C-alpha cells in the first residue's frame, strides 16, 4: 500500500490554479464561492487527482507507467482539510485508489489506475 497525506492550503490551491490555468473563482474567491452555494473556496478536483496520481505513480514504479486514471470527485475539499491518498494493488496492472479526509469521509471514490 502506498500512502500520502496532504493538508490543503489556500496557497497550494492558488498555485495549482496558476500552474493549470484553471482560474474558476470557486477555487480562489470566498465571497464568490458563497454566492454559488459553497462554504467558501474549494480545491480543484484535478488538484486532488494530480496528488492521487503521484501516489499511483509511486505504487506503479514511475509516473509514465500510468496508462489510465479514473477519479470520481465525491466530496468537497476545503483549505485546512487533510486528505490521505492511498493506492493499493488490485489485480494485475490495476491499482485501487482512495482518498479520505480527516473525518474519514471519502473525497475520491471508485477511483482506479491501470499501469504497465
Amino acid at each position, binding site marked *: 500500500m502506498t500512502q500520502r497525506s496532504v493538508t490543503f492550503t489556500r496557497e497550494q490551491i492558488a498555485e495549482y490554479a496558476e500552474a*493549470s490555468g484553471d482560474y474558476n473563482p470557486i477555487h480562489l474567491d470566498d465571497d464568490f464561492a458563497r454566492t454559488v*452555494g459553497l462554504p467558501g473556496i474549494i480545491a480543484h478536483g484535478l488538484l486532488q487527482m494530480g496528488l492521487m496520481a503521484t501516489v499511483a505513480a509511486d505504487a506503479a514504479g514511475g509516473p509514465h507507467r500510468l496508462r489510465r486514471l479514473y477519479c470520481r470527485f465525491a466530496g468537497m475539499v476545503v483549505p485546512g482539510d487533510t486528505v490521505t491518498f492511498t493506492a493499493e494493488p488490485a489485480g494485475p496492472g490495476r491499482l485501487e485508489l482512495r482518498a479520505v479526509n480527516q473525518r474519514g469521509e471519502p473525497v475520491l471514490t471508485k477511483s482506479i489506475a491501470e499501469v504497465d
Partner: protein
Amino acid sequence: MAEIAIAGRTYPPVTFQIDRERAAAFAKAIGADPAAGVPPTFAAVYSLGVTAPQLFGDEEAAVDFARLLHAEQEFTWSRHPRPDETVTSQGRVASDVGRRGMRFVTFETDTTDGAGLPLCRSKALFVIRS
C-alpha cells in the same frame, strides 16, 4: 431552463506546445518531481485544458462555469508526451442530459502527437447545478 442539448457537438482542434517550465511548475504544484518529465495529469492542461474553454465559451452550449462541478475525470494514455512536444487536441460533447434539475455533460478530448498518433483521451463529467 431552456437550453439546447448539445450532444454530438465537436469543436475545432487546438494545437498546444508543452512548455517545459510550465510542466515543471505543474509538477511542483502537485508535489511531483519536476525532473521526472511531464506529469501524467498535466493532461489537465494539454488535453482537457485547451478544449474545455471552447465548451465554456460556447454561448449556445450555455454551460454556466460558476455552477459547474467536475464530477468525474478519466485520462487514458497511449503514451505520455515529452517536454517541448507539440500536441493537438479536439473536444466533443459525448452526452448532455438533464436529471433532477441538474445537467450532466460528458466532454471527451482526444489528443494526438505531431504524427497524428494518439497520446491521450480525456473524459470529463461536468454537473451543472441549476
